C-alpha cells in the first residue's frame, strides 16, 4: 500500500467537506429545509405559485444533509485501498494539512474522540503526544508504515487514531521509558485500540433496535401474577435494554451446554456449578439474551422463552412458616409450568436445600419436580455447597444436569471489566483509566480470596470508584482501595515519613534491640528493596531463618519489625511449630478460616501485610515443613479449599534453637560469626536437623550471637525504659544506678538462657520497689525513684544468683520459648 498521504484523494476531500458541515452548518441546513418547505406549502395554500419554487428548493439542503449523514460524516473506507488515504478514518483525515509531519498527525489525532479516549484512559495527553512527535515531514513515512503494519495486524476495518498514536509513540527513541512512566507498554496501546472500537460497537449494538418477538409473542402463554411478584424477569429487563451483558469466551461452552440441555428431550433442568464470582448469574443472563434474539438459531421450543429468577428473600418473608413456603413454591412452580414459556432460575439454590438463617430445606418439595424433569429449571450453586448437598442427597444431584462454570482467563476478565465499567462509570459518575483495570486484575488476583475471576476483579474495580481523584479512577485509586480494606502497603514508598522510616530502619529497630547488627541489617535491606519496588514480586518480601540460643533477640527482632514497619506488634502472625509435630497438623496449618481462624492461611488472608513468625521450626513435622516450602519459594500457600493465599507482602521469619550449643562453643573459642556461619549450616544439614532444600529456600540464614555483659547492660536500659513508659501515666520515673545495674547483670546473666532471666529479675526488683513506694505514699507525681545496689541486694538477697537463675529457668522451660 502506498504510504504517501494524497491530500486531493476523493475520500480525504470528502472528509474535509464533512468537517465543514458538522455541527452548526448541519443545523443551519435543517433550518433551511424547514423554512423552504413550510413557507412553500404556506404560499401554495395561499394560492401564490412561487411556493412551488420554495418547496422545490428545500430538496437541495435536504440532499446535502442526507449526503452528510449517509457518507460525509464518516466516509467509508475503500474496498480495495491502494494508499493510506483509502483507509484513514475521516475524522483524522479532515484535520490533516497537505504534507503532514508526525506533529501534524498528532495534532489531528488529538482533536478526535479517539484522541480524547487515549488522553483520559491512558494518560496520553495532547501535550505529551505533541511533545514527542517529530516536526520533520521526512519522518511521516515511518509513521504511516508502522500504522499500516498495525492496521493489517489488528484487522479492524480502518486506520484509527489509536493506531496513529501507537506509531507516533513507537517512533520516539525513548518510548519504552516514557510509557513505563505511565505504567504502560506498547502492547497496552494495541489493547486500547481494540477496546475503543469495542466500546463504539457496544454503543451501536445497544442503540440498535432488537428483534425480540413482538406484540403477539406471549399471547399463547399464560399469565404469571405470582411469578411477577416473587421473581425477576431477566428476559424483560434485557428486552428493555436495562441489562448490559457480556458473552465471554470462557462461558461459551457452558452456554452451549445449557442450550443443548433445554433443546433435548431429557430432563429440563441444569445446575450451574462454580466458585462464587465466576459468573454463574452472567451465564443465565447471556442464556436469556440468546433466547430473546430472533436471529439466533434455536429450536422453536426455546425461542423467546422468559427466564425468571426467583427472589428467595421475598419468598421467605412472604411465607415464613415451612408449610406456607412449600405451598407458595408449589403454586409458583405450577404457574410457571402452566404458562409454558417460563424457565425458572433459582439463584444461589443452596438456600432452598439447607436449613439456616435465610435458607430453608425444600428438598422434599423440589426433588419430585426435578426428578420429573418437565418444568424448566436452572439452579446456580457454589461448588462447595454443591458437593455438600450431593453428599447429603445424591439422588437429587443425579437428577440434575451439571454445567460447570470455570473462572475467566486474564484476557476475558479484562474484557468483562472493560464492558462492565460503562455501568460503573454511569452509576458512580467516574472514569476508569486503562491502568486501573490492569491494577485491579493484578491486585485482586493476589489479595481477594473469597471470589473467583472475574468477580474478584470487578469487586475491586467497583470499590476503587470510592477513591477516585477528580472523577478519575487510576492505579492509585485501586491501590488505595486495597490498602484501606486490607491494610497492606502496595504503592511504592513515596511519603516522606515512610521514606525516613525505611532509610533509618536499623536505628529504629535498635531503639528496642541490642546488637545483632547483621540480623537487623539483612532484614532492613529486604524491606527497603521491597518498598523501592525492586524486589521479586512473586516471593515474600523476605524469608529469613534466625539461628541462635534462646534469649538473644530472635523473636524480639520479629516484633520490632512488626512494630516499626508494619504498624504494630499485632501485625505479626505467630505460629509455634512445636504444636505442629504430627502429620495431621498439616491440615490445621491450612484450615479454612470459618473452621479455624487461627490457621496460618486464615490469618494471612485477613492480614497479608505482616511478619509471619514460625517459631521453633526444627520441631515441626517434615510434612509441615514440606507444606511451607511453597510459601517460602513462591509466597503462596493453598488452603483446604484450594484457594491461593498470598504471603507475598509478608516477611517470613523462622527461628530455631538448633545449633545453639555449637554457636556458643564457636564464640567461646574466639571465632567471629562470619567465620563459622557456613560451617554451622553444614553441621545442621549433616546432623539431619534440616534438609538442604528447606534451608535453600531462605533468603538469608542469620546467626544470632549470645549477648555479652556490656550488651546486657544496654538491655537493662531498654527494660527500664519500657517500665518508665508504663509508669508515664502516673507521672513517676524510675532510674537504676550503675552499681545496681551491674548487680542485675551479674545475677540475671545465664549463658544458656540469654537475656530472658535478666528481664524477669529486673522487673521483679524494679516493679516490686515501685509498688511498695506507691502504696506507702512515699512518692508523688513528678518524682524520680532511684534504685541502688543495696535495694537490689535487699530484694534478691546477697549471692542469690544461683537460686534466682534456677527459678527463672524453671519458669522459662515451662511456659516460654524464644
Amino acid at each position, binding site marked *: 500500500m502506498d504510504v504517501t498521504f494524497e491530500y486531493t484523494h*476523493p475520500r480525504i*476531500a*470528502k472528509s474535509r*467537506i464533512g468537517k465543514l458541515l458538522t455541527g452548526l452548518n448541519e443545523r443551519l441546513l435543517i433550518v433551511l429545509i424547514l423554512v423552504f418547505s413550510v413557507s*412553500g406549502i404556506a404560499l*401554495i*395554500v395561499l*394560492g*401564490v*405559485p*412561487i*411556493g*412551488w*419554487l*420554495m*418547496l*422545490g*428548493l*428545500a*430538496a*437541495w439542503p*435536504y*440532499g*446535502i444533509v*442526507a*449526503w452528510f449523514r*449517509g*457518507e460525509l460524516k464518516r466516509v*467509508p473506507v475503500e474496498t480495495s485501498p491502494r494508499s493510506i488515504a483509502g483507509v484513514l478514518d475521516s475524522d483524522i483525515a479532515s484535520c490533516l494539512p497537505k504534507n503532514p509531519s508526525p506533529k501534524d498527525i498528532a495534532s489531528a489525532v488529538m482533536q478526535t474522540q479517539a484522541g480524547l479516549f487515549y488522553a483520559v484512559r491512558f494518560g496520553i495527553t495532547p501535550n505529551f503526544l505533541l511533545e514527542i512527535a517529530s516536526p520533520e515531514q521526512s519522518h511521516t513515512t515511518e509513521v504511516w508504515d508502522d500504522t499500516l503494519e498495525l492496521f493489517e495486524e489488528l484487522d479492524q476495518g480502518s486506520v484509527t487514531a489509536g493506531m496513529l498514536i501507537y506509531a507516533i509513540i513507537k517512533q520516539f527513541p525513548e518510548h519504552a521509558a516514557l510509557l513505563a512512566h505511565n505504567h504502560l507498554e506498547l502492547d497496552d496501546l494495541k489493547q486500547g485500540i481494540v477496546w475503543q472500537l469495542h466500546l463504539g460497537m457496544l454503543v451501536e449494538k445497544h442503540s440498535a*433496535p432488537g*428483534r*425480540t*418477538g*413482538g*406484540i*403477539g*409473542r406471549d*399471547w*399463547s*402463554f*399464560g*399469565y404469571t401474577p405470582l411469578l411477577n411478584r416473587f421473581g425477576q424477569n431477566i428476559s424483560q429487563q434485557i428486552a428493555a435494554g436495562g441489562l448490559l451483558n457480556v458473552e465471554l469466551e470462557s462461558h461459551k461452552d457452558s452456554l452451549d451446554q445449557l442450550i443443548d440441555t433445554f433443546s433435548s428431550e431429557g430432563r429440563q433442568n441444569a445446575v450451574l456449578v462454580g466458585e462464587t464470582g465466576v459468573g454463574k448469574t452472567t451465564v443465565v443472563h447471556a442464556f436469556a439474551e440468546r433466547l430473546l434474539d*430472533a436471529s439466533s438459531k434455536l429450536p422453536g421450543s426455546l425461542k423467546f422463552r422468559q427466564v425468571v429468577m426467583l427472589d428467595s428473600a421475598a419468598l421467605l418473608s412472604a411465607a415464613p412458616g415451612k408449610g406456607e413456603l412449600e405451598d407458595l413454591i408449589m403454586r409458583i412452580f405450577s404457574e410457571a409450568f*402452566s*404458562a*409454558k414459556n417460563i424457565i425458572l432460575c433459582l439463584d444461589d439454590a443452596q438456600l432452598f436445600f439447607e436449613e439456616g438463617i435465610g435458607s430453608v430445606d425444600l428438598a422434599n418439595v423440589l426433588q419430585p419436580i426435578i426428578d420429573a424433569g418437565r418444568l424448566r429449571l436452572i439452579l446456580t450453586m457454589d461448588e462447595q455447597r454443591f458437593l455438600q448437598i450431593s453428599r447429603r442427597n445424591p439422588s437429587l444431584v443425579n437428577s440434575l444436569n451439571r454445567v460447570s462454570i470455570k473462572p475467566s482467563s486474564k484476557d476475558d476478565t479484562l474484557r468483562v471489566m472493560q464492558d462492565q465499567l460503562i455501568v460503573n462509570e454511569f452509576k458512580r459518575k467516574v472514569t476508569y483509566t486503562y491502568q486501573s483495570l490492569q491494577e485491579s486484575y493484578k491486585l485482586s488476583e493476589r489479595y481477594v480470596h473469597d471470589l473467583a475471576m472475574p468477580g474478584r476483579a470487578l469487586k475491586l474495580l467497583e470499590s476503587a470508584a470510592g477513591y477516585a481523584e477528580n472523577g478519575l479512577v487510576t492505579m492509585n485509586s485501586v491501590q488505595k482501595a486495597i490498602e484501606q480494606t486490607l491494610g497492606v502497603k502496595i504503592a511504592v514508598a513515596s511519603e516522606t515519613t515512610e521514606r525516613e522510616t525505611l532509610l533509618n530502619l536499623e536505628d529504629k529497630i535498635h531503639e528496642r534491640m541490642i546488637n545483632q547488627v547483621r540480623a537487623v541489617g539483612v532484614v532492613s535491606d529486604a524491606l527497603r528493596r521491597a518498598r523501592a519496588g525492586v524486589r521479586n514480586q512473586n516471593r515474600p518480601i523476605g524469608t529469613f531463618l534466625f539461628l541462635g540460643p534462646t534469649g538473644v533477640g530472635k523473636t524480639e527482632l520479629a516484633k520490632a519489625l512488626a512494630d516499626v514497619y508494619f504498624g504494630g506488634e499485632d501485625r505479626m502472625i505467630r505460629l509455634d511449630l512445636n504444636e505442629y509435630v504430627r502429620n495431621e497438623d498439616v491440615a490445621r496449618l491450612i484450615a479454612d478460616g470459618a473452621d479455624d481462624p487461627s490457621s496460618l492461611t486464615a490469618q494471612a488472608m485477613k492480614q497479608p501485610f505482616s511478619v509471619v513468625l514460625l517459631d521453633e521450626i526444627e520441631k515441626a513435622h517434615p510434612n509441615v515443613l514440606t507444606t511451607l516450602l511453597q510459601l517460602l519459594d513462591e509466597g503462596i500457600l493453598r488452603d483446604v479449599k484450594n484457594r491461593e493465599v498470598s504471603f507475598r507482602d509478608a516477611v517470613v521469619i523462622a527461628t530455631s534453637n538448633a545449633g545453639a550449643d555449637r554457636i556458643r562453643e564457636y564464640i567461646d573459642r574466639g571465632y567471629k560469626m562470619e567465620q563459622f556461619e557456613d560451617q554451622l549450616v553444614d553441621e545442621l544439614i549433616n546432623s539431619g536437623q534440616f534438609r538442604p532444600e528447606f534451608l535453600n529456600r531462605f533468603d538469608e540464614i542469620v546467626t544470632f550471637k549470645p549477648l555479652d555483659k556490656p550488651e546486657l547492660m544496654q538491655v537493662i536500659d531498654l527494660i527500664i525504659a519500657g517500665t518508665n513508659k508504663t509508669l508515664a501515666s502516673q507521672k513517676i520515673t524510675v532510674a537504676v544506678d550503675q552499681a545496681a545495674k551491674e548487680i542485675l547483670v551479674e545475677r540475671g546473666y545465664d549463658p544458656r538462657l540469654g537475656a530472658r532471666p535478666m528481664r524477669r529479675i529486673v522487673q521483679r526488683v524494679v516493679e516490686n520497689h515501685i509498688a511498695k513506694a506507691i502504696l506507702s505514699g512515699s512518692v508523688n507525681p513528678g518524682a524520680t525513684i532511684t534504685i541502688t545496689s543495696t535495694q537490689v541486694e535487699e530484694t534478691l538477697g546477697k549471692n542469690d544468683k544461683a537460686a534466682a537463675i534456677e527459678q527463672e529457668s524453671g519458669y522459662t522451660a515451662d511456659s516460654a520459648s524464644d
Partner: protein
Amino acid sequence: MSMIIVWALSWWYSAGWKARVVSLRERLAASYDYFSIDLLLRTLFSPFRQISAGKVSGPIGLQLRAFVDRLISRIIGSIVRIILIFVGAVWLALQALIGALLLVIWPLLPFAPLVGFIMMLSGWVPVWM
C-alpha cells in the same frame, strides 16, 4: 465545486439510493417483528393466555365443560390474533407502499427546484374550497 456536485450526485444515485432500500427493508423487518405475523399464524387457535388450557380429568360433564371453556378461549385467542394480523398486514402494506414511493421519488429529488420553477411559471395552484 463541480467535483463536489459529481461526488454528491454519484452518492445520491448509488450508495444513497441503496441505503434507502436497506432502510426500508429494516423498517419493514422491525414492523414484521413487532406484529410477529408468522408467530400469530402458527398459534392462531391456541388458547388465549393459556386460559382454561389445562387437561381436566373427571366426570364427562366436567370434561365437556372444560372442552367448551377451552374452545371459547381458543376462539377469543384467534379473534384477537386475526385482528392483530390484519392491523399488522395493513401497516406493513402501507409502509411498503410509502417506502416504494419514496424510492421512486428519490432519483427525482435533485431536480425538484427545477420542477418547482416550472410549476411556478405555469402559475397553477390547487384551489381550496
